């Protein structure tokens, strides 16, 4: 028999399983500076990201603390945990540069059918930062505004798609 790479459950990489087993930074942040809520419980994945923002010596905004609460599958929990690791301590500008591919790479890969979980994690961060800008009444950069609009739109499409299943 041909030898194949032994991934857990034949589906997830050991890194995904390790992250799923011991997720980092889960739970609420009381008085969070920004909260990003993405996903839809009808589809089976809901991700909430809480961020606490502070200023560094150069007076730039950076993510001082970040926590997640996720309802979802192994991939959803792993991507949630990994994005908190990836952006904690980073400036907001740098944090927003994180892509779904960075997340997938950090997890040693994801099954294709679960790629949407990595998108969910990026979206949750965008929404949390957007929320922070709103709350602090800071000027929202054009790029962030655009990303937020796209997320909002796709959320509406999904909600419409699952309407048939009722509430």
């Amino acid at each position, binding site marked *: 028999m041909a030898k194949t790479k032994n991934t857990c*459950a034949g589906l*997830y990489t050991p890194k995904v*399983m390790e992250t*799923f*087993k011991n*997720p980092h930074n*889960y*739970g609420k942040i009381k008085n969070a500076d920004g909260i990003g*809520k993405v996903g839809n*419980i*009808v*589809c*089976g*994945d*809901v991700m*909430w990201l809480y961020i606490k923002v502070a200023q560094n010596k150069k007076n730039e905004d950076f993510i001082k603390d970040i926590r*997640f*609460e*996720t*309802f*979802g*599958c*192994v*991939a*959803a*929990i792993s991507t949630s945990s990994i994005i908190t690791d990836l952006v904690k301590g980073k400036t907001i500008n740098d944090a927003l540069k994180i892509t779904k591919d960075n997340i997938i790479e950090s997890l040693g890969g994801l099954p294709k*059918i679960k790629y949407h979980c990595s998108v969910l994690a990026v979206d949750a961060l965008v929404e949390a930062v957007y929320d922070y800008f709103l709350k602090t009444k800071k000027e929202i950069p054009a790029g962030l505004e655009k990303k937020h609009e796209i997320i909002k739109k796709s959320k509406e499409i999904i909600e419409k798609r*699952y309407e048939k*299943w*009722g*509430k």
Partner: protein
Amino acid sequence: MKKIYLDYAATTPVDKRVLKEMQPYFSEKFGNTMSLHSFGQEAKFALDQSRQVLADLINANPNEIIFTGSATESNNLAFKGLAFNMPKGSRARHIIISSIEHACIMETAKWLSRGFRVTKIPVDKYGMVNPKDVEREIRPDTILVSVMHASNEIGTIQNITEIGKICREKKVYFHTDASQSLGKIPIDVKKMNVDLLTASSHKIYGPKGAGLLYVREGIKLVPLLHGGGQENGLRSSTVNVPAIVGFAKATEICKKEMAAEGKRLVKLRDKLIKGVLKIENSHLNGHPKNRLPNNANFWFEFVEGESLIMRLDLEGIACSTGSACSSFKLEPSYVLMALGLKPQESHGSLRVSLGRFTTEKEINQLIKALPKIVRNIRQISPYGKN
């Protein structure tokens, strides 16, 4: 860590007694059942004997048993075999199935819907088909009704005898998929008024690669496979003698042990159900009484099934779920939805299926492990925290 297997509805290990019975048919008694010489005769004899064993178990005649490669194949043969046998220009174009059939019935019916109309009968909240609903849906052009004997997912056992009686009166063929029930609860095709019945070897401690279709004498089917004419011309292919010998041996053991084993499993199952339902916001899926001795199915609020299965797996316990996230289509289980569950509810489902090698100790371990795992998952989730 000793692993605990509680997914017997998916497949079962081959019983050692079965394996022993099969062994000679690989390298010693390897003949082709179609050969005239002694090697062939030996194989043919084993095949005939096996057919007799299976026929006895369900109260059929041996010539009514068609061996196939799987239950999926048997179901395809029943549906397509009947459908393709309709004379050209025949108006008979209607098929009735329940809304909780196995995927191989659902997909076959869907494929046939290019030329046939398919009616899906709903089920109640316990997964029961009301025979009166079947009666109401039968039309002059109905050729076939198919309702599974027991559900692979929720374990609910249908009133097959009653549905069969209605079909017989209305002169419509009645097929039942007994893949999950054969060897676990008694089956009598005559008493149950069944015309066609599907069963599988690997669900009852036999090998994979053997199934059967019971076809009541006089019913004409068109084969799916054409060739050497094995199995009464209905299933051309060199006969998989070792697998069929194993299937027969597995059947023999089940028949002998059914009564005692059924009682033992019901006791374990009910203990499990009682223990699991102590978890807050947990529910039982399927019928409270009228279910397979080895099936328990739950759903937990604010829990996603794939995470649940993988956490259990990390503790060495193997179960399954109807969560969308675990399916290749990312769609929630249509069986649970048919019971009236919402998608978000069906995401949190857990199927535990017990079997011959399940011990009370294993059930205790699951009852002990589950509350902690459910609590952990809820802790990570934005919902359902106390």
